[in-house]
């Protein structure tokens, strides 16, 4: 049963992301990306990471993608559709893809896919994995967590400064 769902989600993800990059209409592409996020959230649920799934939908699908759509909608999509869609850089892409494939193989090559790696905390023992996630975030990964938040803060301030200068001009 679980496996069946996994293939459904994974297949859906691959299909929608392929469709996404081949659409000329940016809005369609963005909506397909939302679908991809959905399937990804499904995979998270299967992995027992309900909280992460919810975050995936809330932040990526419900938040960031809406902002994307927001700015895309202000563009003249009809003009964009008629514009050139391919960059004619196939050779570069091919090289990059091969390199990426090698890298993935090098890192994950020895992981046995059939048997998912056991997590350090046990699922179902806690009333939810929120506590577990929080505990890990604030103990083991405290430093990266803080670095990330400072990075976001800097980005936010930068965006405000840029936008403000635009208004004044």
């Amino acid at each position, binding site marked *: *049963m679980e496996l069946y769902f996994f293939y459904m989600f994974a297949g859906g993800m691959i299909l929608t992301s392929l469709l996404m990059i081949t659409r000329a*209409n940016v*809005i*369609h592409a963005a*909506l397909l990306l*939302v679908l991809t996020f959905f399937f990804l959230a499904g995979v998270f649920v299967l992995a027992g990471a*309900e*909280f992460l799934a*919810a*975050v995936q*939908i*809330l932040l990526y*699908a*419900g*938040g960031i*993608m*809406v*902002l994307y*759509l*927001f700015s895309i*909608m*202000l563009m003249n999509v009809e003009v964009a559709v008629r514009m050139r869609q391919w960059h004619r850089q196939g050779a570069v892409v091919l090289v990059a893809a091969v390199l990426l494939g090698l890298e993935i193989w090098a890192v994950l090559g020895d992981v046995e896919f059939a048997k998912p790696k056991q997590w350090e905390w046990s699922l179902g023992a806690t*009333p*939810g*994995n*929120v506590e577990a996630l929080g505990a890990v975030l604030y103990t083991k990964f405290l430093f990266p967590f803080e670095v990330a938040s400072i990075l976001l803060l800097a980005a936010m301030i930068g965006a405000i400064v840029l936008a403000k200068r635009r208004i004044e001009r």
Partner: protein
Amino acid sequence: MDMALEIAVAAIKIFIVVNVVQLVVAYTIYVERKVIAHAQMRLGPMRVGWHGLLQPIADGLKLFLKEDIIPDKSDRIVFVLAPVMVLVPALVVYAVLPFSATFYITQINIGLFFILAISSLGVFGIVMAGWASNSKYSLLGALRSAAQMLSYEIFLGFSVIGPLMLAGSMNLQEIVHAQSDVWFVFYQPIAFIVFFIAAMAETNRAPFDLPEAETELVAGFHTEYSGMKFAFFFLAEYANMFVVSTVGIVLFFGGWDGPDFIPLPGFVWYVLKLSVFMFVFIWLRATLPRYRYDQLMRVGWKFMFPLVMINIFLTGFLKYLFL
């Protein structure tokens, strides 16, 4: 076999809830029309049935039979999908709402978070509708709506953290149990105010009904919709009202739990509290004018956001001190 039985029970529950919700939504519209009518010194629907009681059914029939118009220059697929994308998240959320101690479709540990996540998807339908209609009024309505719902989702999300910290769980049933002594509204008045305002904005209700401000944008994002597609938007708005009301009741007013000295079943308590919430929604619509877009944003970011942040820190601090 067990699994099949489970699925069957779940399906029956879903069937009941969804259908009851649709019916109740239809009658909420009737109640709203009646309440507003009486606030405005008129009678409201009176013709269909006794005091217009069959009016919602007549309206539904009318909407079913209406010609379905798809504008020529619209993006057909997105245009058709948009109303579905609005209504489905609104109904999916019902899966985790606790209607009483025993009646609910399912319980999940991240219930509250699930509600927030799924209901945040409703904005997609609106944005899609506005864009696919290929009309400037619709587009402006959709843009307003996207910005408004995104911003107020943040305040909504932050305002529930206060009660969450007190309950120590995101499971809605457990939050209800945590309030068996004192309702959280007494501990968390600031959070409740912010929650209520944000909820009104999230459901596009007056005085935050800018996305569909009929006097400026004709009807906002659903200007071009007619027939059953229009009805979907309408149903979704009221279904969302139920959701936010229920969440408000669960988080701040003890859910289906009532005072012990009045022996009423949990479901009755729930319905009573829900009615009060819905009445306040309708009452405000009858009373208040509409905010302007930039004022709405200012209220949100300059007033509600600091307030809700202070509330979170205060709650954490006091909880650390006293509990």
